[in-house]
């Protein structure tokens, strides 16, 4: 919970990691390249005092995680999004099991999401059943650019992926986090294209599709599909730190999101440990759309409350203390897109 100027904000961090990218866990040069790429994002978009050493960034402690999220980061509940990357890291980058082990030691703090990969076929469907039962999954994180043997990616709009989406729904998994990366099959297409999310959002209206990084670097494609599909949401991981380096760009991204999809379908996220929620939350609450950007709606306290936690709380049925619930009901919005479809 964050409090400023007499206003209180319930905070759900919609995208956190507890990864192991230590050299000992790196399986090859791709594992090194992956964490170095993350580290460049971290160094490039963080205030100088927030920059960690590469060694710490590769492998931080559970104590760091708890401190940064809950002791000083104002986070009430954090959502673990696993990223397996088993072709890059011997024990995986961060798996559902590893995340769940941490979550078990800190009851009430984390939501543990699972993952699946349609390339795993029938065996993967059976494994998903087990995973869902064991961890009571309500969400999964999908990474369409994951390398698997000779394959460097997959698409959501295939019969194979449809089987997994149907199975997810059957198992009570409601929230499908989609993260696009730099590779896909086939490689000559735009790997970041989110049009496959458009297809499955139409075919599975009872599932929520949370497009991570609000589709960046394809913000325009994301807004376009989210405007048309009421069950598509946007996670702000990676967009958030622009509040420091490029505040006017951040205002434009947020302004476009508010204009196109509205305040009820945008979710705060730090992408910890790439960025720490503490400074992101503080600056977001202080943030205003610059006065000269008259084309964008005002960033009210109610809008900030929804983005910082209430929207994600709705998706995951997180119990929000009564006095922090202001603005929980979707309000009339002037956004182009329709109201969110919030399954009961």
């Amino acid at each position, binding site marked *: 919970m964050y409090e400023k100027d007499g206003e209180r904000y319930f905070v759900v961090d919609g995208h956190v990691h507890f990864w192991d990218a230590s050299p000992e866990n790196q399986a090859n*040069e*791709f594992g090194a*390249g*992956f964490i*170095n*790429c993350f580290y*460049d*994002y971290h*160094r*490039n*978009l963080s205030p100088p005092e927030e920059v960690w050493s590469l060694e710490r960034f590769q492998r931080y402690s559970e104590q760091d995680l708890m401190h940064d999220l809950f002791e000083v980061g104002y986070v009430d509940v954090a959502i673990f999004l696993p990223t397996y990357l088993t072709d890059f890291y011997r024990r995986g980058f961060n798996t559902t099991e590893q995340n769940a082990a941490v979550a078990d030691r800190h009851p009430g703090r984390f939501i543990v999401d699972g993952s699946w990969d349609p390339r795993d076929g029938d065996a993967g469907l059976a494994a998903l059943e087990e995973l869902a039962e064991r961890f009571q999954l309500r969400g999964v994180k999908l990474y369409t650019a994951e390398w698997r043997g*000779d394959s*460097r990616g997959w698409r959501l709009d295939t019969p194979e992926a449809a089987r997994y989406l149907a199975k997810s729904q059957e198992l009570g998994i409601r929230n499908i986090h989609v993260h696009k*990366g*730099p*590779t896909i*099959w*086939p*490689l*000559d*297409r*735009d*790997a*970041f294209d989110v049009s496959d999310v458009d297809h499955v959002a139409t075919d599975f209206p009872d599932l929520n599709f949370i497009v991570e990084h609000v589709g*960046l*670097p*394809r*913000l*325009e494609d994301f*807004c*376009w599909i989210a405007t048309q599909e009421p069950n598509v949401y946007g996670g702000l991981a990676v967009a958030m730190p*622009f509040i420091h*380096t*490029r505040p006017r*760009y951040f205002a*434009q*991204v947020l302004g*476009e999101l508010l204009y*196109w999809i509205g305040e009820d379908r945008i979710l705060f996220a730090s992408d910890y440990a790439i960025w720490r929620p503490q400074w992101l939350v503080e600056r977001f609450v202080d943030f205003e759309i610059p006065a000269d950007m008259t*084309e964008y709606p005002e960033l009210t306290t109610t809008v900030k409350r929804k983005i910082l936690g209430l929207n994600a709380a709705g998706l995951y049925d997180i119990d929000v203390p009564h006095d922090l619930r202001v603005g929980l009901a979707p309000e009339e919005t002037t956004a182009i897109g329709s109201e969110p479809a919030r399954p009961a």
Partner: protein
Amino acid sequence: MTTRAAVLDALAGVRDPELDEPLTELGFVSGVSLDDGEVAVRLRLPTYFCSPSFVYLMAADAHAAVAALPGVGAVRVEVDDHFAGTAIGDATASEEGFGAAFPGESAGEPDALRERFRRKALAARQARIAERMLAAGRTPAQLAAATLADLPPEPDRERCRALRSELGVDAAPAAPAFVRPDGAPLASAEELTRFLRVARLVRVSLEGNGELCRGLLRTRYGEPAPEEAIA
């Protein structure tokens, strides 16, 4: 005899297909060397995992631009510090196409990708031009009626004309100044205003991506003066 300046000049005509900016201005050219008519070009990128399709297009375009210079023999394009750099360099040297760089992993050449991003670039540049004109007091009706010749003679206008020519969209001075990315006309002030709302979103996205790429490149390689970058 080809000079280093001529090679750099040729590379200035090669653009990042996603950002629609010259490789030389983005700082993506990290080295040029000439040896008796043989030219080696080194490219560097913001990340190790930059999308291979875009990297391939830049490398292949750089190869073609330099190979077209008079007096140039063999051309070699190397991509530094990239997961597929070697495969891409080999494929451009053999001129066998994208499929040769990634056998079994592509459905064809990335031509559709290139066209898609040309259309986005056209929309974004039109948004920039229109926003400046509206801020200067022109009305949407005036913009809808304007021809290319009516636009201020800025780099964005020239780039719009070039993109329109590449896309097969009328780029004559008397052609409408603002068109949909597929070349279809914007018949009224209302249509233009609605189109500009989408075009602004594309502009925000492309400009933001450009800033991020420049920032990551600086973080990755430091920030040398332009002449040092071409070491």
